[in-house]
């Protein structure tokens, strides 16, 4: 046996040497003009089809390869992308002219026929059957719903006039229409390439390593100029902590755009390459207005007044901005209504008494249900529980649910009080009309106010921006006055971007480049 000991030592030595040799390549790799972006919270993209996707995970990729008729600029405004447009006096017909020089990555020019084909594909029953949801945004196009349900063979309202001009007719005037065209659900693809998903964006698809990364290379025909970067790789990290480690060790140049691990924010925010921006989303509590006691607006107001939004924001490391409004700051028609219920424990207690439940006496058992997708959710829930206990003397039970089951509960409206994290949207309509109008499928609160419905219906089609905002603001004041929601805070997107990356930063929807072709490396 004695002879074995030294040989073991030798093995240990040899493996140590082997480890070092293996380690060297990663330490000395040299960089050409490449950029790698972490895509957190997902192990792979479900599909490359832009018409099927649209969430933050997919956007990291689709923004590189595809574009639409319009895009959202750094100020949250819809501006021309592949086309410029004019509107008819009645606001119902948009005439789009394709930008001269706009070409697909195959070299073929973008024609109005490609646009007509793309929009028809985006709204086709076949695309919808695979989970495509373009109809949610583009349903205002004349004939879109009939086509989407299979009743007609094409969208009636989308017509090519000549090679570079097309008209889109709407069912009613809609000032927000161009802002619905930015998303990948309205991406323009080359008809001749069909299901190969060829876009006219700054990059084109190069490689897809399933479960690891997607790599794109420049589109040599991009009308905004040929990209300065030779290659962009989007790397998937299901665990956001792993993406953070990857940034620290140089494996990615950008991280956090989709999901920054909140536990790392205090540490990361000390760094000079850290940046943070409030995005146009809202996290809010939704009371079930169809079940007692939250069918009573006074009870809802009491619970809303009892919430200390600033305390919640500081609980999350100050990386969200507290709000009492529905329409986020920075979005058109934001009002900042001073009458919106904000933290006031005295008012809260008084209102609960007026509603007939002084000190909480006589209230049924209450439960706050939430999707437990991160430890932050548990901390928020515990803090809310404490706030209601202190201000109202009411004990609210907590029910943390796995996300999948939680979505079912939300959909079936079997909760009393729940939480919704609504991602970035570019028009007030997404918050008010789509989520609070009595006939909307997204109205989880079951809120029903006729005046609110009328106001939002009028605002949706109003073309004069001042009038439109006045209508939305009046509607928002009604919803807040009855505490249809308890707004909590606007999310912020936190990113780490290597200082050598130029032309890339944060916009109202997250990661933003004014022109991806101009994004470069300074080293």
């Amino acid at each position, binding site marked *: 046996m004695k002879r074995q000991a030294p040989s073991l030592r030798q093995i240990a030595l040899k493996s140590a040497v082997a480890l070092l040799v293996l380690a060297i*390549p990663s330490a000395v790799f040299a960089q050409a003009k490449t950029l790698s972006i972490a895509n957190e919270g997902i192990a792979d993209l479900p599909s490359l089809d832009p018409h099927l996707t*649209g969430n933050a995970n997919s956007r990291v990729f689709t923004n590189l390869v595809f574009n639409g008729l319009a895009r959202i600029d750094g100020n949250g405004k819809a501006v021309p992308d592949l086309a410029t447009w004019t509107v008819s006096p009645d606001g119902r017909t948009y005439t789009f002219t394709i930008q001269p020089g706009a070409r697909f990555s195959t070299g073929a020019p973008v024609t109005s026929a490609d646009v007509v084909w793309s929009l028809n594909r985006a709204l086709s029953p076949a695309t919808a059957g695979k989970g495509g949801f373009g*109809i949610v945004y583009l349903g205002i196009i004349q004939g879109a719903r009939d086509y989407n349900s299979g009743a007609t063979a094409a969208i009636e309202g989308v017509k090519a006039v000549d090679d570079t001009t097309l008209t889109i007719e709407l069912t009613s005037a809609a000032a927000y229409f161009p802002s619905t065209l930015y998303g990948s659900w309205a991406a323009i693809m080359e008809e001749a390439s069909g299901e190969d998903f060829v876009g006219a964006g700054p990059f084109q698809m190069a490689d897809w390593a*399933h479960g690891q990364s997607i790599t794109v290379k420049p589109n040599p025909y991009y009308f905004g100029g040929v990209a300065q970067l030779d290659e962009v790789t989007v790397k998937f990290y299901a665990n956001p902590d792993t*993406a953070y480690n*990857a940034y620290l*060790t140089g494996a990615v140049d950008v991280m956090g755009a989709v999901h920054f691990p909140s536990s790392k924010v205090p540490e990361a925010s000390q760094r000079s390459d850290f940046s943070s921006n409030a995005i146009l989303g809202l996290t809010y509590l939704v009371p079930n207005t169809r079940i007692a006691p939250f069918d009573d607006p006074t009870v809802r107001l009491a619970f809303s007044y009892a919430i200390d939004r600033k305390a919640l924001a500081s609980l999350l490391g100050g990386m969200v901005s507290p709000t009492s409004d529905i329409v986020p700051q920075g979005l058109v028609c934001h009002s900042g209504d001073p009458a919106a219920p904000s933290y006031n424990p005295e008012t809260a207690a008084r209102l609960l008494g007026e509603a007939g439940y002084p000190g909480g006496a006589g209230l049924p058992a209450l439960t706050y249900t939430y999707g437990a997708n991160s430890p932050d959710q548990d901390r928020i829930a515990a803090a809310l529980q404490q706030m209601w206990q202190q201000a109202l003397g009411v004990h609210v039970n907590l029910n943390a649910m796995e996300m*999948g089951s939680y*979505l079912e509960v939300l*959909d079936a409206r079997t909760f009393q009080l729940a939480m919704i994290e609504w991602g970035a949207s570019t028009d007030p309509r997404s918050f008010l009309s789509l989520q609070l109008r009595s006939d909307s499928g997204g109205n989880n609160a079951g809120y029903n106010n006729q005046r609110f419905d009328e106001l939002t219906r009028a605002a949706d089609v109003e073309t004069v921006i001042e009038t439109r905002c006045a209508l939305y603001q009046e509607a928002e004041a009604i919803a807040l006055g009855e505490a249809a929601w308890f707004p909590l805070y606007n999310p912020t997107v936190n990113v780490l971007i290597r200082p050598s990356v130029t032309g890339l930063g944060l916009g109202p929807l997250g990661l933003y480049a004014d022109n991806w072709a101009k994004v470069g490396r300074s080293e």
Partner: protein
Amino acid sequence: MLRFVTARLLNMVFVLVGVSLLTFLVGHLAPGDPILILLGNNKSPELYAQIKAAYGLDRPFVEQFAKFAWRALHGDFGLSYVQQGQAVTDILARGVPVSLQIGGLALLCTLAVAVPLGTIAAVRSNTWFDNLIVSIALALYAVPNFILAPLLLSVDIALYRRGLPSLPVAGWGTPAHLVLPVLVYSLGSSAYLVRLTRNSVLEVLREDYVRTARAKGLSNRAVNARHVVRNSLIPIVTYVGPSVAFLVSGSFVIEYMFAIPGIGYLAVQSLYQRDFPVVQGITVSLAAAVVVMNLITDISYAILDPRVRYG
């Protein structure tokens, strides 16, 4: 022996049918609607019904299961709900080799380290060497890999910051990517196997036949190699058999933490997204691997220990 193997193979059919039924049932009864998750914020009742029908989820349970079982028999687990247009078998075919590589390498490392160390510790029991090995093994065994991994990672990140050679913290592709996950994987299992080997060898050392062998005048080396090691292999084989089977499913924790595109990573994602066809595919393949490996383990008992006979 032949009868035994045939009986076990027949048994296997029942086990697999049972597992498929159970997996299917659990997927069916579990809360969380895959279509709702797929749609996210973009739900409309028409769209919902359309997609549900497209996946056949609107059919009665028995019909769904019959279809599933019939296809599974032909090695077809259907299409993923989430990964558009991809067959579950293709997804598995991508992930299994990755998991096998990581897990296989880790198992080899574990065996190469743990069996010799455990044996030496037993032969030299109650010496400083034995005490050292046992203490280290106990410490490593007590530390779960989700603690061990961040510890190693922080060392690695510190090395990188100082400009020293460091290892990739995540991903897949080069041999360097293998080092950290294999290390985490094998440290924990080595700790267990060292203790198992040591105990097993100690037990055998006290057997009468070992004393007899020594009394015959055989050298220490011959006794250890011919009598002790071989006889103490049974518990080790019992451990290794199912371990090999579980290589197929990868390690959920390690693959998730190191972003390794294996089956474990896939399984976690699929469970979150209610991608039931993928979950079913993984479970059934894992069950098949376990059944086969158990059979091989049982056969190897007979080879290792002539007293074991199956009839």
